[in-house]
């Protein structure tokens, strides 16, 4: 009955009352592609290999429906899918073969897990009769990926593929998003079955968004209305639930200064008068200092990461803490809350808004302004308007701000350039800051920028990397060349692993162990991929070079040689209190 080479379509009456159901006998591999199409997936990132070849064969047949991007390494596939997801709010898809293909996905999956990025990863697996036998390119990817996925499973029968993928997409995107992995044995890809696809809308054991208790909203409103020094700290939850307008309304109505975690950046425009800057280790001076002076701390869609809180025993002890959170496991995990509002940020803020009194707290705002003035004198002025020789990272970011008019999506890697970019980038639009926050994955930036540009071709996407992280995934220049992806790439080259070097300077008596980099000719490498490229070493050339980059209709690589031993300040030393933030 199951003819392997011929697709069979027969009609059977399934339900007498309604319509006829088309029986469609297709292979498991074709089913994979059909499921992706049903989920409205148009771009996927991946790398072929033995155990996933049947799916690639179907991708070839359906190439007019799904654009497969061949990255140069599977890590690039996951990071590209992440960049895609972060700028679009949609699920990113990565695909790889078994064994090394699958293990190479792991860094990106772990990054997506800790940064709550919706990803569906599909891996091929050795045929089911070989499972457990140490077959060629066999690895227990379900076991390996378990601690870093929101959910994962292995499919050994074609008939299980549609339900597994439907569940995968649902779990990845719902509630607190995250990466999922579906491992499909090669025999399941070849096997034929009667295909039908139904989107998943619930999983019995899974409650994506906890019910919001209105009493908690009322308790939160009461605390906020009574507060003299209320302070909002928001995270990526605002962006994930698309609560930007609700956040703005709450901030404005109650007159509350608001600061952001690195992943929350761009949810409220940088220029908004109540946006008081970045929290955490290299965040702004005022929001860190005043965390320990506010009387009500209102955390929204953030998880009190240690890079934000510093020492927990001295964190906001004077304040009543309100935590708006979708993930119940985050409540009281790091910081004990007085009022926990479970639920979706957008819905909760909509309920909160009418209960808030109008307020302005001018004296409290003044405290932020006073501390900003100190930070400006000690740090910002020197970063953005340097008088010394040697370009600073800050002035490069400032030039990109000016020339992109704050409209660009900034994709950063990890390290000093990342902190500087997040501190100084001006964001007018949400979903404009794409970076590796929780995992701190060097090499994230370049491939993530590819995914971001493909998801939002109408947007200017500027990738900013250091000379270290750039070389961790530099092979993705090949993807940019082949795909003609018009990303703008900036490498801020200080010939050091700068952040580690800074720590060595401050905490290890300047013993620069393995942080000095002897670098290649970056321009020549970009040019070897036939990309436009330029190198800037002098301040007087910066403006013009950035202008040339921004004007380019195609991909453009710009290397800026910056001062070798620049440091990022302010800084909260590891394990210190937020109020011990150092300006020098």
């Amino acid at each position: 009955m199951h003819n392997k080479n011929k697709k069979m379509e027969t009609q059977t009456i399934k339900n007498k009352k309604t319509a006829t159901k088309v029986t469609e006998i297709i292979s498991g591999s074709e089913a994979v592609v059909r499921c992706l199409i049903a989920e409205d997936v148009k771009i996927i990132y991946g790398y072929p290999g033995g155990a996933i070849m049947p799916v690639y064969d179907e991708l070839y047949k359906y190439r007019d429906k799904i654009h497969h991007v061949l990255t140069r390494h599977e890590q690039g596939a996951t990071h590209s899918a992440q960049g895609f997801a972060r700028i679009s709010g949609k699920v990113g898809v990565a695909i790889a073969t078994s064994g090394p293909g699958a293990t190479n996905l792991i860094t990106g999956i772990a990054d997506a897990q800790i940064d709550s990025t919706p990803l569906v990863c599909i891996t091929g697996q050795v045929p089911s009769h070989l499972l457990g036998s140490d077959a060629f390119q066999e690895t227990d990817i379900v076991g390996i990926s378990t601690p870093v996925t929101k959910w994962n499973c292995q499919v050994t029968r074609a008939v299980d593929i549609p339900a597994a993928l439907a569940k995968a997409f649902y779990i990845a995107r719902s509630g607190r998003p995250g990466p999922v992995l579906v491992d499909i044995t090669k025999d399941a890809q070849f096997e034929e079955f009667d295909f039908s696809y139904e989107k998943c809308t619930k999983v019995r054991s899974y409650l994506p968004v906890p019910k919001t208790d209105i009493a908690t909203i009322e308790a939160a409103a009461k605390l906020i209305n009574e507060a003299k020094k209320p302070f909002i700290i928001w995270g990526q939850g605002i962006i994930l639930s698309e609560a930007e307008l609700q956040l703005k309304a709450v901030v404005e109505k109650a007159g509350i200064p608001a600061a952001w975690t690195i992943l929350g950046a761009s949810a409220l425009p940088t220029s908004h008068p109540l946006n008081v800057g970045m929290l955490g280790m290299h965040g702004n001076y005022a929001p860190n200092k005043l965390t320990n002076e506010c009387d009500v701390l209102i955390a929204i869609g953030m998880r009190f990461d240690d890079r934000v809180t510093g020492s927990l025993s001295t964190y906001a002890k004077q304040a009543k803490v309100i935590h708006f959170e979708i993930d119940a496991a985050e409540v009281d995990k790091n910081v004990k809350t007085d009022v926990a509002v479970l639920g979706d940020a957008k819905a909760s803020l909509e309920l909160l808004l009418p209960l808030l009194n109008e307020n302005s707290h001018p004296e409290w705002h003044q405290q932020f302004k006073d501390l900003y003035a100190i930070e400006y004198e000690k740090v910002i002025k020197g970063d953005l308007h340097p008088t010394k020789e040697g370009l600073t990272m800050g002035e490069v970011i400032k030039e990109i701000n000016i020339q992109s008019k704050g409209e660009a999506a900034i994709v950063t890697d990890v390290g000093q350039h990342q902190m500087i970019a997040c501190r100084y980038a001006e964001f007018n639009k949400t979903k404009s800051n794409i970076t590796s926050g929780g995992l701190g994955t060097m090499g994230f930036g370049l491939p993530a920028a590819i995914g971001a540009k493909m998801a939002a071709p109408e947007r200017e996407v500027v990738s900013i990397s250091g000379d270290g992280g750039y070389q961790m995934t530099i092979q993705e220049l090949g993807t940019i060349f082949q795909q003609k992806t018009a990303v703008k790439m900036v490498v801020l080259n200080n010939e050091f692993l700068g952040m580690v070097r800074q720590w060595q300077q401050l905490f290890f008596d300047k013993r620069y162990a393995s942080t000095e980099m002897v670098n290649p000719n970056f321009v020549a490498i970009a040019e070897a991929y036939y990309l436009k490229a330029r190198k800037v070493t002098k301040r007087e050339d910066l403006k013009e070079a950035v202008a040339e980059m921004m004007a380019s209709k195609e991909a453009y690589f710009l290397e800026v040689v910056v001062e070798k031993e620049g440091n990022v300040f302010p800084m909260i030393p590891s394990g210190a209190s937020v109020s011990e933030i150092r300006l020098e």
Partner: protein
Amino acid sequence: MSTEKQLYTVSIYTENNIGLLNRISAIFQRRHINIESLNTSSSEIEGVSKFTIVVNMTEVNIKKIIGQIEKQVEVIKAYYHNDDETIYQESCIFKMKSDLLFDERQIQNIIKESNARIVTVNKEFFVIEKSGKKEEIELLYRELRGFGIMQFTRSGRIAVTKEEMKISILLETYNN
């Protein structure tokens, strides 16, 4: 909330899923928490599995662990209880030489007094089974040790709680 370590019985209702044991044990492993005992079985609800895990830790930390367990997609609900809030049992079996039954008369008394029972006897060996609290089992072990134990195995704790566990109601609310 208590910051003293004590024994907690963790009861986890889950879907019957192959990889779930890994996911759950990894949550304890990450925080370096030693699992004292672990038992998995079917539960009172058809198609729902139950993990019974005993750990020694503070209430502050067990609450965080429970949150991270419940967060797993295929976990329906997790609870923690102390010993006063549960009725619990362990079980053990001893394999001993059959000669002892005739040569060492007090063995029969030990078996009787400890409420153990003989499961099987043959020419070479006999098998004793005993259910009870950990201390009772340990006492029996100490009493029999002197005679020479050929094999000994103790099970993990199984427990029911005094509190009602409304899993069926919960499943209904999830599905509406």
